[in-house]
């Protein structure tokens, strides 16, 4: 509960995401705009799900803790489904916008490819989701206090930070896989993304048993990362070329859309 905890948890939660942003997105204003738009779509989905949850709470029995918890679980599931719906809506909007951008900019190639858009929008969703989950917790970790003094877990901040990092990266991978599946009309992949999102959220119902929730989440994160890598066009050969600095495309650093 000091500055050390605050900075440590902030960098754990947002470190990879901010690094990705700084190195790949920050220099291109178009990507920044689409990132913010992705964040906005996530926000709208959250707003709708909060509205439904709020109404359901108002008409329910406020004294029964079990019912409140049940409503919260319902809220979580509804929110996940709405998030994926809005991801699909964003995909549709981006397809239309890409054509519009092409007409506006009078160039022959599209200024940003659908794969870059998938990455950027996924990261946008992830940023907003992570920020909304953890920023209040981080703000309170600066102040004085004792964690878990009433018998709760003492690893609240650390586990929140790790979970947030996983969620942000997962959103990015889900974005890539989702858009690629929509492009190729592979609806089973879309369903897999939705189911994995639901799984990750439902795993958090087991908190504060952090081993039961964090470890499977990280396993899913790794698997989704590999899937996203392959669906974005990566392969072992590409990886080897990139790591041994022999990839000519990467070295020339021209951002040609594929």
């Amino acid at each position, binding site marked *: 509960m000091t500055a050390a905890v605050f900075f440590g948890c902030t960098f754990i939660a947002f470190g990879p995401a901010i690094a990705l942003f700084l190195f790949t997105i920050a220099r291109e*204003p178009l990507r920044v705009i689409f990132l913010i738009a992705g964040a906005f779509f996530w926000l709208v989905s959250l707003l709708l799900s909060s509205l439904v949850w*709020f109404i359901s709470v108002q008409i329910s029995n406020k004294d029964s803790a079990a019912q409140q918890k049940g409503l919260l679980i319902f809220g979580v599931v509804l929110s996940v489904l709405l998030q994926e719906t809005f991801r699909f809506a964003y995909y549709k909007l981006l397809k239309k916008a890409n054509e519009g951008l092409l007409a506006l900019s009078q160039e022959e190639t599209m200024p940003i490819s659908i794969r870059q858009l998938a990455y950027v929008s996924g990261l946008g969703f992830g940023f*907003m989701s992570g920020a*909304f989950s953890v920023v209040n917790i981080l703000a309170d970790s600066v102040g*004085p206090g004792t964690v878990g003094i009433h018998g709760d877990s003492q690893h609240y901040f650390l586990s929140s930070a790790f979970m947030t990092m996983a969620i942000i990266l997962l959103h990015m991978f889900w974005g890539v896989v989702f858009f690629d599946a929509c492009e190729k009309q592979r609806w089973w992949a879309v369903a897999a993304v939705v189911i994995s999102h639901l799984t990750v959220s439902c795993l*958090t119902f087991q908190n504060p048993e952090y081993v039961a929730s964090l470890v499977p989440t990280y396993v899913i994160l790794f698997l989704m990362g590999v899937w996203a890598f392959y669906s974005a066009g990566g392969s072992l050969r590409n990886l080897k070329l990139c790591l041994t600095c022999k990839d000519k495309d990467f070295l020339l650093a021209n951002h040609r859309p594929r």
Partner: protein
Amino acid sequence: MQRRFLMEHPHPQMPFGRRELSLNVTHACNAQLIDTANTGQTDRSFAPRSLLHRAAMNASDSDDDSYNERTALVQSENPVVPSYRPEPDVNPPSDSPPKRSGVTRRAGPAAMDGGGGGSVGGSDQDVDADDEELTLKIYTPFTENTPSVGRRLLNSVLNTIIMISVIVVMTIFLVILYKYRCYKFIHGWLILSSLMLLFWFSFMYLGEVFKTYNLAVDYPTVGVIIWNFGAVGMICIHWKGPLQLQQAYLILISALMALVFIKYLPEWSAWVILGAISVYDLVAVLSPKGPLRMLVETAQERNEPIFPALIYSSAMMWTVGMANPADAQRSGHETDEEAEQSSRGAQPESRQSRAIPEDDLEEDRGVKLGLGDFIFYSVLVGKAAATGGDWNTTLACFVAILIGLCLTLLLLAIFKKALPALPISITFGLVFYFSTDFLVQPFMDNLAAHQFYI
């Protein structure tokens, strides 16, 4: 928001230290004009304004008399009304009460004393403190410190009407000056305003910062800092300077102006003013007889720029000299939009919006946005941060305003004429502020309490 506790004078019953002694000392040394909002809280040993208030303060929690970032900004009191904010969470997380208590306890005496319809009511100690409040009480004389919701709403609407009429009058005055080519007058006015912002307001802000973090700084140091800051700012804004530095200074003065608004406008009045000014912006820029539209057309007839010192440009500024050429390749920003703001303090303000199709200057492909728009965006986000309660609301307002701006730029690319920059952004910002505060906040609090992730 954060709270700091210094362990200087540990109170026997309180677990945390109190800062009241050091605060009283620094406050006594400080010029009274800097802050009025907290005299009621920290000056407890000097001004026995109301024994009831003091007793309440003495019996209250240790964080009730800390001078922190929140209390430095907010000053009006909430009416004693039944809470219309729904409280569905049975088990609030332990972190929410400190944030909420910062919202409910305000500088009651200062607001009550200044609320006598512009007069310096109250005890003699408030005379100096109210001088600063008076300048804004002229614009918002109707107090919000009333117990009934309807009365408070009415007062804020009346305050808004006064502010908006002041703005309209000054805008028309500026348009008339521009029409009759009184350029020297306008330039003198602008230079005076930026002088005041860069020197006086930044001095006030620095004073607030030192008070909040309880730093003791001597006047010569402050003098050197403010002099350097202000002089470089004047040169950068009105003459030549590197583009990044100029942009930084313009953003800084917009933020300072917004801080003044956030601090001195009563709470509900600020929200109503934000709504009203977007409507005014819409009317003034788009209707054929609107003052801003006339300004645009006059400038286009004469083929000359409008006060470039008050416009934020994302690419090269084509009348102010460049110390280094800016990168002109910005993809997608082919159209311009301008709005300007002549800043105020003791003077009332005016603002316009316009756009110039920059076909003749091929290097200037950037987007131009008026500082007035920056100011009101900042007021929205700042109010959300200061009074909203938590970071989710602030983030939501931030994203909403950015998306509103993107949509406005999109419309600009489609229509290619002067467009008001405020309405869409402020609408989105207000909608998201209130909905996040009432709907999303309890949901996220509950999720965080159980550590569920969505």
